[in-house]
């Protein structure tokens, strides 16, 4: 990328500054989620949160040290097993069992990591795959504890028992927030480590182990640390899954799931926390959505293969990396302006929806916000898909689009309007995003399709009108703000 040599580089910020955006996101989701989702979807998203944490551990090992571990979901199973066993066996509080289960899984992860100190690449992947298979076999034979006697804690003939939800989170709503809390804690730990001493040591090691040794870094120690951390947090995710339903399914931790977790972490992006979020959503939320629409959720596996192929062609940063690259160009003025306009439109439309009794306030608010947030999404997706056919096709498509856009913009300024160089992309997006978001919310919120489509399209149309009419007035203000504040995410990673 061409850089201006005289421009000062933006510092990456303190560790807290670097973890903050993620914590705020999780907090907002935990706060708003229960208002807009039904109980079924809340439980789905609790599961998603667990999977995000598990995916975060895969990303930790792969992104920081380039080590492929296919056993992370199996380690979640281990954590879940010990959590269940401890609660059934001793009646200890769920939180304590959760943490102890995580620590035991961390120990397993550490043992798993020992051969990894000498192995890498395909051999390590194969080894961890074997371990995942071994865990699957053991769980099939032993089963998850359900209140029975003996060390396995398995009921032979009789009523299976479930563990109670934690005292502070008995309902689905509470448990969702409870899971989000642990997710924020776990991912926060990973991100904090990345931004401080361990992250720097991992950086040296992944560049070259020889250089790291020459610099006095103990490669063994920091690889072991990564494996122990990844194991413990995967175990935590397993314990949270056990707490969600009070039990675990013997078939719930197959090898295939571990491989899927790894593949989708690559699709989501292993170098940014958002990648884990994408992975979690893809594994659990997308199949649930498809099922909701009467389509077999397993169909999504076919799509995942395609997505993995694209992300391998597109570069190793995944969806999250591309999104983060996009954020780098965001200016403060657009954030302020966007927040005000989006907020106003969303609230207005939500009030209208309530007035005409089309749908609830929170749902409509959420819907129009989503529509506005995603108004650039479709061109991005098209661009990604074109990338499948190679860089040249992508470039040609961009050239064609630019040719038309330039002429359209010239026409607009000839008509005395504020020219918009992205009008073609916007039009494309407006057309399709309505259908797509409408389809999603039709499933998630049980909203009537026409109502959803109306809300989405009108919010985008109003936004566009405001932009068209008010742009000349806003422009100087924008420039003033941008001159004062630099791009906030320019150093974001």
């Amino acid at each position, binding site marked *: 990328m061409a850089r201006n040599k005289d421009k000062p*580089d933006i510092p990456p910020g303190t560790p807290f500054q670097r973890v903050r955006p993620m914590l705020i996101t999780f907090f907002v989701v935990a706060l708003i989620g229960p208002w807009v989702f039904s109980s079924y979807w809340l439980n789905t998203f609790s599961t998603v949160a667990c999977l995000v944490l598990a995916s975060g551990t895969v990303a930790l090992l792969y992104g920081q040290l380039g080590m492929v571990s296919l056993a992370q979901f199996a380690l979640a199973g281990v954590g879940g097993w010990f959590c269940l066993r401890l609660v059934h066996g001793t009646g200890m509080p769920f939180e304590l069992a959760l943490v102890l289960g995580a620590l035991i899984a961390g120990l397993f992860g550490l043992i798993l990591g020992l051969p990894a100190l000498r192995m890498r690449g395909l051999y390590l992947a194969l080894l961890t795959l074997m371990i995942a298979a071994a865990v699957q076999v053991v769980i099939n034979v032993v089963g998850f504890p359900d209140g029975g006697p003996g060390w396995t804690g398995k009921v032979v003939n009789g009523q299976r028992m479930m563990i109670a939800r934690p005292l502070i989170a008995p309902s689905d709503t509470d448990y969702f927030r409870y899971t989000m809390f642990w997710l924020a804690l776990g991912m926060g730990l990973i991100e904090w480590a990345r931004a401080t001493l361990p992250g*720097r040591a991992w950086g040296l090691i992944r560049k070259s182990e020889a250089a790291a040794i020459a610099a006095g870094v103990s490669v063994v120690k920091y690889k072991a640390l990564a494996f122990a951390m990844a194991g413990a947090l995967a175990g935590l995710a397993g314990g949270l899954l056990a707490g969600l339903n009070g039990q675990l399914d013997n078939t719930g931790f197959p090898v295939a799931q571990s491989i899927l977790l790894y593949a989708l972490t690559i699709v989501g992006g292993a170098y940014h926390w958002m990648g884990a979020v994408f992975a979690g959503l893809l594994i659990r939320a997308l199949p649930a959505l498809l099922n909701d629409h009467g389509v077999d959720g397993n169909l999504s596996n076919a799509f995942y293969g395609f997505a993995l192929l694209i992300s391998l062609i597109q570069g190793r940063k995944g969806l999250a990396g591309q999104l983060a690259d996009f954020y780098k160009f965001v200016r403060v003025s657009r954030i302020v302006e966007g927040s005000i306009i989006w907020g106003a439109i969303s609230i207005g439309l939500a009030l209208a929806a309530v007035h005409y009794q089309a749908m609830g306030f929170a749902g409509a608010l959420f819907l129009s916000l989503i529509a506005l947030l995603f108004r650039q999404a479709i061109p991005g997706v098209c661009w990604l898909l074109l990338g499948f056919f190679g860089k040249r096709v992508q470039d040609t498509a961009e050239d064609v689009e630019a040719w038309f856009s330039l002429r359209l913009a010239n026409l607009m300024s000839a008509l005395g309007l504020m020219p918009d160089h992205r009008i073609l992309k916007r039009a494309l997006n407006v057309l399709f995003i309505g259908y797509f978001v409408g389809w999603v919310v039709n499933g998630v919120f049980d909203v009537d399709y026409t109502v959803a489509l109306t809300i989405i399209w009108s919010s985008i149309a109003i936004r566009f009108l405001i932009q068209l009419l008010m742009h000349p007035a806003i422009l100087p203000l924008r420039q003033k703000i941008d001159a004062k504040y630099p791009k906030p995410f320019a150093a974001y990673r």
Partner: protein
Amino acid sequence: MIEINDLCVQFGGVKPIDGLTVTLNRPIVGLIGPNGAGKTTLLNVLSGFVEPRRGWVKVNGEMITGVPAHERATFGLRRTFQTDQIADDLTLLENVQAIADHAKFDSRDAEKKAVYGAIDFVGLSHRLNRKGDALSTEERHLAEIAKALIGNPKLVMLDEPGAGMTESESEHLQKVIKGIPGYCKAQVFLIDHDVELIAACCHETMVLDFGKLLALGPTLEVLKNPDVQKAYLGNFDDLEVAA
């Protein structure tokens, strides 16, 4: 001061270093030799990546043969590599800080001072927050040197720091290398193919050829030595010149 006694390294049938005995005690020592002379192998022995078959090495009177590689860094042996090892997605400051994380300091302030001081010394204070992948080749080489200056080193070993540099960049590099003994009281051991750089920096130069010591002494004398010139350029006597 580096003392090497009867050093012998063997990889299968190949002997990259064969019975080398030498004492190097000037502040900046150069090492030259044709390809395959055993230069990098000697550096690897000094930094602990290669175990000698025979012989020993002492630095400042302390025996270092047998000490594990990562402990040598704490002892004060620092080196750079032919291919620079700057992590692409860490900033320059983080790259240097990563080294300081594993060195011993009296206080946080001393650590900070060492990190910023080293970056300032090589002349990169204006690139503190630039990520590794955005640094130029020259800046990456200089950053490597900055990394090697952390933690009161006793011996700084530079493996071809001038590779791929332009003339003006090389001049700046000369200044930096000459300044190292004054900056942190470390002895500098410099390997390079750029004879101009060696001549400008080194008080003393040693020439290796096929694992054996060919010459050792003040740099200019060594460079004028006919044996050295022959080893570098070959023997012209039996050359069939076309024109």
